[in-house]
């Protein structure tokens, strides 16, 4: 006997003890596919035959079976299963996971069973047990199919069992092996002329008979269903799609109208409404074979299709993630009707739950069923029913190109019950009342997350980091709609061994050289705070592109996403200054955009950190100066008495010198700010605009654009001084080192060294996007006022950079990914996931001095 299994499914072996179930299972299935009750008894009670553990053992068995089907994986249950109750719970589990349960019965003769059991020491139960099991089995045999098994195979003898052959085939919905490319076509509803026009627009050739279609090389059409009803020529449409399906050039899915027509063609009693009347009239004029062919065709349609390695799912009314690739009554209902509440609205139409709004699946779902004014992506789903029969358009989605191609309806064939082109429906999908698009779900960010990024493949965000970030994000950060990017942390250069220095450019150059990066840019490190500026051309652009509902025209936020300036009015004032400079530099047109994301330094540092400078830095400076002055005075008095305190006094004088330089260091970061006009902005990356994310441009491109902003408003913008360095050329490096020494000699913060090409890859993946090389004086406010003193600096050299460097790369990948998703108009939660990931990584404990 040949046993054809739909993979995945739940295989229930049925047979008394000694019937050969385990042997059968071993022969036909992987060891991991088989769960036996004996094994589970062993798991919970250390004894495979401990009958007292049966209940707990089955709880474990059911749990494992459920988890495997959730995967989904083919699963075989090896237990006697002769009682109806035990089978019922297994069928229940399969149903819950929308997969078939099938039964394989091993009806081995009693004598054989008894003989086998006798041969085994651990089966010391009497013959009555097997007898009773067989009688229970015999009573069950007839009703097995009715119990809910999709298929039942009965093997009646040891010979039957030996001869049985098990084959597997994917579920009908599973067409992952088919890669297209595809053209997914929306609801046709008998609009034959438009269908032909659309196919032609897609490059398909329509034969003279009007039904033979030749697709462009390699392409296939996928129809979301609803071929007939309401429109002018359902028979011609049916002929065409049936011919395409038969020729293998189309995958056809059923729509709710098709199912109703099928029921009618099968002779059932259905209400002749919603355009079915037209279809029946049109079919009546055709030869009767057409109706028969249509019946057989429609009867063979499978609820939905999972295509292209699981990247694309097509279903008539949509398909939630949990149902994709599965098969059950409710999956079919879902495919045909979508998710409805069971209520009807003012137009008498069913109220639909917006499943797409909550969709978080990895596969793109293309569907139709409910006409929309213009197909739009929402959470990786798109409705391509643009209401052709109602006078809209017939639309196709080209996959994997994700391009929309459509043709207009020649006229309105049918008045919609609800005006689907009404203005409010035409607005982009903004969610609905109980779930506006801006309301992110805690499931979008909480828990351990694995984020796919283009630059670094996957980045894992640990659960406790996500929990920490959740608090920061929800209590302190700007509106998530503005947070399209957070900058990565930046590691310092490897520790220098030079006297009195912890950091020096040579180490940074050497590192890039070793990573195969010949050219780097050295950028002056500004003495301010990191600021991300998101600026829109006007409030309309802000509303349309960022979906904000206020009059804001952008945002300025810190590296942890907090609003940079306290008052919204100040933010707008600063934004209008940025906007004017972008106008002046002509960047809107040049970058073909009405919004920009700039990576900047906003100065002075005291604008953001005055309290910190006062309370921490100045306070330490004041204490140190007062304390050391008194100490030196006391020592001088002692020396005057002839005490031998010369060494002590010299040491204390040396400390005073360090402290004075420390005070100078923090003072450079302070200048009075009375309003936005006193701030200075130094942009250094033009991160993204509508035309793209500019990580494919060299840093010189970014800096030149930034220079043009400075030129447009030299009073408020500051340019970034830089040097391009060839790290294979000694002279070039020496010049850069001299420049760095000049920058830092009088207290400058230092410089950042970056690969000229923005993104660079070395042998271990991404290389550091930037390495900072900080000045000796500046580091006093990081490592402490006297860190450079001889006794101290050598101990500070032992610092470990590994974690910081690893974070820098992962955060960089996440930040770029966030921008790329935003530019691709992916949903907010997808952008937010990456930004949130950056913030989460920042809660990882690292040495704050790095």
């Amino acid at each position, binding site marked *: 006997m040949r046993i054809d299994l739909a993979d995945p499914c739940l295989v229930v072996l049925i047979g008394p003890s000694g019937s050969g179930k385990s042997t059968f299972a071993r022969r036909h299935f992987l060891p991991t596919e088989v769960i036996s009750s004996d094994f589970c008894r062993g798991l919970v009670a250390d004894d495979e035959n401990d009958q007292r553990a049966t209940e707990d053992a089955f709880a474990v068995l059911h749990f494992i079976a459920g988890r495997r089907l959730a995967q989904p994986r083919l699963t075989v249950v090896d237990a006697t299963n002769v009682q109806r109750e035990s089978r019922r719970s297994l069928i229940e589990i399969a149903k819950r996971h929308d997969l078939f349960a099938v039964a394989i019965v091993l009806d081995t003769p009693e004598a054989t069973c008894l003989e086998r059991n006798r041969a085994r020491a651990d089966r010391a139960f009497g013959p009555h047990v097997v007898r009773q099991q067989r009688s229970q089995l015999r009573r069950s045999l007839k009703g097995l199919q009715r119990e809910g098994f999709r298929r039942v195979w009965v093997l009646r003898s040891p010979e039957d069992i030996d001869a049985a052959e098990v084959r597997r085939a994917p579920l009908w919905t599973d067409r992952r092996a088919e890669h297209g490319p595809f053209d997914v076509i929306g609801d046709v509803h008998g609009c034959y002329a438009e269908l032909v026009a659309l196919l032609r627009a897609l490059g398909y050739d329509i034969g003279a008979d009007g039904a033979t279609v030749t697709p462009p090389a390699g392409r296939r059409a996928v129809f979301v269903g609803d071929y007939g009803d309401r429109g002018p020529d359902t028979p011609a449409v049916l002929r065409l799609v049936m011919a395409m399906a038969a020729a293998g050039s189309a995958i056809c899915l059923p729509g709710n109208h098709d199912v109703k027509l099928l029921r009618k063609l099968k002779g059932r009693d259905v209400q002749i409404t919603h355009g079915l009347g037209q279809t029946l009239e049109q079919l009546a004029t055709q030869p009767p074979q057409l109706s028969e062919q249509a019946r057989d065709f429609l009867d063979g349609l499978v609820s939905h299709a999972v295509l292209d390695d699981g990247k694309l799912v097509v279903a008539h009314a949509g398909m939630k993630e949990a149902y994709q690739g599965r098969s059950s009554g409710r999956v079919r209902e879902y495919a045909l009707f979508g998710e409805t509440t069971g209520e009807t609205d003012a137009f008498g139409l069913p109220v639909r739950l917006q499943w797409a709004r909550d969709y978080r699946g990895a596969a793109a779902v293309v569907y139709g069923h409910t006409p929309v004014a213009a197909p739009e992506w929402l959470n990786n789903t798109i409705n391509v029913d643009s209401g052709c029969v109602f006078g809209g358009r017939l639309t196709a989605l080209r996959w994997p190109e994700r391009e929309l191609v459509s043709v207009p309806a020649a006229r309105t064939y049918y008045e919609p019950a609800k005006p689907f082109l009404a203005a409010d429906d035409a607005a982009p999908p903004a969610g609905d*009342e*109980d*779930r*506006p698009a801006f*309301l*992110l*779900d*805690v*499931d*979008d960010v*909480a828990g351990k997350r694995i984020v796919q990024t283009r630059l670094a493949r996957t980045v894992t965000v640990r659960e406790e980091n996500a*929990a*920490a970030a*959740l*608090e920061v*994000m*929800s*209590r*302190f950060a700007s*509106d998530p709609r503005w947070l399209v990017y957070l900058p990565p942390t930046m590691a310092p250069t490897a520790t220098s061994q030079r006297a009195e220095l912890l950091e020096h450019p040579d180490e940074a150059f050497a590192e890039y050289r070793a990573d195969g990066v010949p050219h780097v840019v050295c950028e002056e490190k500004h003495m301010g705070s990191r600021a991300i500026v998101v600026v829109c051309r006007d409030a309309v652009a802000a509303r349309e592109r960022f979906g904000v*509902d*206020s009059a804001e025209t952008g945002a300025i936020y810190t590296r942890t996403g907090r609003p940079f300036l306290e008052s919204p009015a100040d933010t707008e004032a600063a934004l209008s200054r940025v906007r004017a400079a972008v106008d002046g530099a002509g960047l809107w047109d040049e970058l073909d955009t009405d919004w920009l994301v700039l990576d900047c330094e906003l100065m002075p540092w005291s604008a953001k950190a005055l309290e*910190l400078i*006062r*309370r*921490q*830095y*100045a*306070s*330490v*400076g*004041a*204490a*140190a100066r*007062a*304390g*050391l*002055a*008194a*100490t030196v005075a*006391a*020592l001088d*008095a*002692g020396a005057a*008495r002839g*005490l031998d*305190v010369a060494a002590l006094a010299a*040491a204390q004088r040396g400390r005073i010198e360090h402290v004075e330089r420390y005070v100078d260091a923090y*003072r450079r970061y302070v200048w009075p700010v009375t309003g936005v006009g006193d701030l200075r902005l130094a942009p250094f990356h033009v991160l993204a605009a509508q035309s793209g994310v500019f990580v494919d441009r060299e840093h010189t491109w970014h800096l030149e654009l930034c220079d043009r902003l400075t030129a447009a408003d030299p009073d408020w913008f500051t340019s970034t001084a830089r040097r391009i360095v060839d790290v294979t050329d000694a002279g070039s490096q020496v010049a850069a080192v001299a420049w760095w020494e000049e920058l830092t000699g009088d207290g400058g913060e230092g410089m950042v060294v970056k690969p000229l090409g923005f993104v660079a890859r070395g042998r271990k993946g991404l290389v550091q996007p930037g390495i900072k090389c900080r000045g000796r004086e500046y580091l006093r*406010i*990081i*490592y*402490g*006022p*006297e*860190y450079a003193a001889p*006794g*101290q600096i050598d101990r500070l050299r032992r610092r470990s950079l590994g974690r910081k460097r690893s974070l820098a790369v992962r955060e960089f990948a996440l930040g770029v990914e966030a921008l790329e998703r935003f530019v691709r108009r992916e949903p907010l939660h997808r952008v937010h996931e990456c930004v949130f990931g950056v913030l989460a990584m920042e809660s990882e404990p690292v040495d*704050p*001095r790095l």
Partner: protein
Amino acid sequence: MLLTITTTHRPATDLGFLLHKHPGRVQRFDVPFGAAHVFYPVASEECCRVALLLEIDPVGLVRRGRGASGFALAEYVNDRPYVASSFLSVALVSVFKSAMAGTCKGHEELAGTAIGLEASLPVVPARGGAELVRRLFGPLGYEIDVTPIALDGQFPDWGDGRHVALTLRGELRLADLLRHLYVLLPVLDDDKHYWIDEDEIGKLMRRGEGWLAEHPERDLIVRRYLKKQARLVHPALAQLDEALPAGADAEDGADAAAREEQLEERVSLRDQRLGTVQSVLKASGARRVLDLGCGAGALLARLLRDDYERVVGADVSVRALEQAARRCKLDAMHDAQRERIALLHSPLTYRDKRLCGFDAAALVEVIEHLDPPRLAAAEQNVFGSARPRTVVVTTPNVEYNVRWETLPAGSLRHPDHRFEWTRAQFATWAERVGAQHGYAVRYLPVGPDDPDVGPPTQMAVFSR
């Protein structure tokens, strides 16, 4: 870090005997955190001055892991090497041990005699400023010179920092001076560099003997000295009470009562608020209730005593939830009780499906902690998505703030409050939210309903 002690006792150089340190020598002592040097800048018959110079190793300090106030670099950029703190206390015990004990072989009488002494500390961190310095040292009979130190001469508008220069003069035993400094310098600093346990009570009792029990700032001294750890502070205060002569606290009675009244008033507003919320929830007939922004669980603990089928607290702070779990004693609950309650880590501004299916929700003093632009997300989450039949919202009534004398005009009640609303503002918000999501709104006062400015806390009850 420098301490000098000067005496005008004749012969002044007797100071050397008292301290067991010869005025002609410069001595160095190792201490766990660096080195201490003792020398005499002045040593004559008329005047003798000893200097204790502490060299604190800042790199060594880092390993001690002082988790200071939200400033990540505080371990590295700090005033510890320059100021008189608990490091000095430790150095005093180690370098001037016998002087502090009041023993002086061969000079017993001198050690037991009050002599003219002057202690000078160029930099003392004083949380509480010059005023607290006077309150601490004044009752001990010192003449006090205290000068706040300016933060930075280049920025005069920054004013003074928390450091002061301090000189104390008095007629007393040297041992007493050292003990006063030993105890009170860390108290002024309000910090200690080391981990403390029960032994710390013993140290305090030994060095506070004879002066601490009757010190008017006794409670503050004990609390700060023991790092505000209740498990240490209470036994220490009890020991000091025993040391008091009977009836000594009578004069303090009136003061204490006033303090308590103030405290009670505070407690009672909070109590009234929670009680009112409790009543409203009960009256709503809810069986399943949510406490959104439950914090450390004050309301949750009360709700658990009512007979709800399910009580769930949600908060954005993991730490707050841990406190709530402790407060509600989740660990000690038996299964049936435990199943009634759940704590969720959930921020109000993200939709959370786990909040669906409840009859009532309370947001007690929560909305004012959200930035106004994020309030819309919280509204959607609570009224649009979770949609319990009853929602109770309380928030401060900013109009009432003028009734609190201690609150500076125009300031909010809590530094994290993003806004505080007038009654009209609150009503506008509540009406809009109610209309938008189909809830009727009524209002209840919490606390005394002042005829001019209304109650201190305002409450809106939404129902549908």
